[in-house]
């Protein structure tokens, strides 16, 4: 029987790992992720979750242990945040290069210094090029559903890549909201046991990730790129299949909200993509044709979909909870790159907001959209990159 629970986002991630029948969890605690692995440890200890829980001495070891377990052919899970994730950085490359479908919850937290435990995307976005699929969630139901979907996607033989399911610290991780946990039998039907293509086996010895000379290295890298393109095609299909079984849909690659006939579309990620719906409604009430596109998957980046979305749109405003120092927000960069070569591309204004956990309310988002609307009417973006609510 499906049941509704009211718990903080972190515990929802723990329940998703349990529902996915994860067999190995190797983890190291870090704020604001800690409750995910604490709750899993409790479930394993009480015998409610049939998994091996490996206590390790660092996040680097956590990822390496997950790689080893996944190479033995079992479903693995871990969770981390910020400095823990960046300590894993090297091992992230090994996981993706070894084509192991590990799923990891990343509870987004700003990188220090200044030492900060509050949310922004500087931790996960700086792992952009590791070969991991990256999902960004906007509410707790999506956390649960995306973890289940991620295993289904990543274990597909056409993909075989690891995935991060990212959600913002505190705003989601420590906020309780009702979440429907589907019937376990239905989840098992949606997500059958992991069937690995190869495994380490003492009776049939095999090495993986061994030396690969220049004659072949590029070919294996191309296969990762191809798997990412396959994932881009499959993510909306998996999301739709999930909706048919469980009733929840999260937009596939991009969640669109009131984008029909919009002159201006706001593009953002994570909880700002939830908050922005209020701003869109208020502006629509004032007669401004605006819409919202919440980019749910950052890698693979949905550039074709963005190209389609931008047709007939006069202005795109991106809101990045991150910045690439010396350039601009990643979302702004990727959206511009996606639209290169389009006929009559929209103007693009990039906003940087919410770094280090600074609150971004619908009032803030409404101000950004009104500003972008004015620039659209003037036909000129006054400031290509605007840092919102800076205290000068």
């Amino acid at each position, binding site marked *: 029987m499906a049941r509704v629970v009211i718990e903080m986002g972190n515990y929802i991630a723990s329940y998703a790992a349990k529902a996915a029948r994860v067999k190995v969890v190797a983890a190291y605690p870090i704020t604001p992720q800690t409750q995910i692995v604490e709750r899993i440890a409790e479930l394993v200890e009480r015998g409610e979750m049939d998994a091996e829980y490996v206590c390790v001495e660092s996040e680097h070891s956590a990822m390496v242990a997950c790689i080893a377990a996944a190479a033995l052919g079992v479903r693995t899970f871990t969770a981390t945040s910020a400095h823990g994730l960046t300590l894993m950085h090297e091992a992230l490359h090994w996981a993706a290069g070894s084509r192991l479908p590990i799923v990891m919850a990343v509870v987004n937290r700003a990188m220090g210094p200044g030492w900060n435990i509050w949310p922004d995307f500087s931790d996960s976005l700086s792992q952009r090029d590791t070969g991991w699929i990256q999902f960004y969630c906007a509410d707790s139901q999506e956390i649960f559903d995306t973890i289940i979907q991620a295993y289904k996607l990543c274990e597909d033989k056409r993909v*075989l890549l690891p995935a991060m399911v990212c959600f913002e610290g505190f705003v989601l991780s420590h906020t309780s909201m009702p979440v429907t946990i589907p019937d376990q039998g239905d989840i098992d039907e949606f997500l059958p046991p992991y069937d690995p293509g190869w495994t380490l086996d003492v009776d049939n*010895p095999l*090495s993986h990730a061994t030396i690969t000379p220049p004659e072949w290295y590029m070919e294996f890298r191309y*296969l990762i790129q191809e798997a990412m393109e396959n994932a881009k095609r499959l993510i909306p299909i998996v999301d739709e299949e999930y909706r048919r079984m469980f009733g929840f849909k999260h937009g596939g690659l991009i969640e669109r909200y009131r984008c029909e006939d919009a002159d201006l579309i706001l593009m953002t990620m994570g909880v700002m993509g939830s908050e922005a719906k209020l701003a869109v409604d208020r502006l629509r009430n004032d007669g401004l044709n605006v819409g919202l596109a919440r980019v749910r998957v950052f890698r693979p980046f949905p550039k074709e979909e963005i190209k389609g979305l931008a047709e007939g749109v006069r202005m795109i405003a991106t809101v990045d909870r991150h910045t690439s120092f010396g350039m601009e927000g990643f979302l702004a960069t990727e959206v511009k790159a996606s639209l290169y070569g389009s006929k009559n591309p929209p103007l693009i204004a990039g906003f940087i907001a919410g770094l280090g956990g600074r609150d971004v309310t619908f009032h803030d988002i409404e101000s950004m959209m009104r500003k972008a609307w004015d620039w659209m009417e003037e036909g000129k973006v006054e400031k290509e990159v605007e840092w919102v609510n800076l205290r000068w």
Partner: protein
Amino acid sequence: MGLGRGASRGLRDLPPTILSSPKVGSVGRTGSWRLSRPVINYDRCTKCLLCWIYCPEGCISRAEDEKPIIDYDYCKGCGICAKECPMDSILMEMEEV
């Protein structure tokens, strides 16, 4: 899969990731990297087998009479055996280019 041995012709022949079954020379005969080769003077060798223990590549095997034998197909010429030999019975000789 035999990278470097011509078993795979293109990326469609490849597994998703780099996998290899343990076999001799799966990535080629790495002894070709060697600049100088250790040569054992068996007249001085006492068969103490320190060279066999220290060889980091496992390229020294023991014959039936415990005589150490160097496998030049994989010895990279690091010289550890020569350094460790208490009888100075291993000399490093430059490879001809």
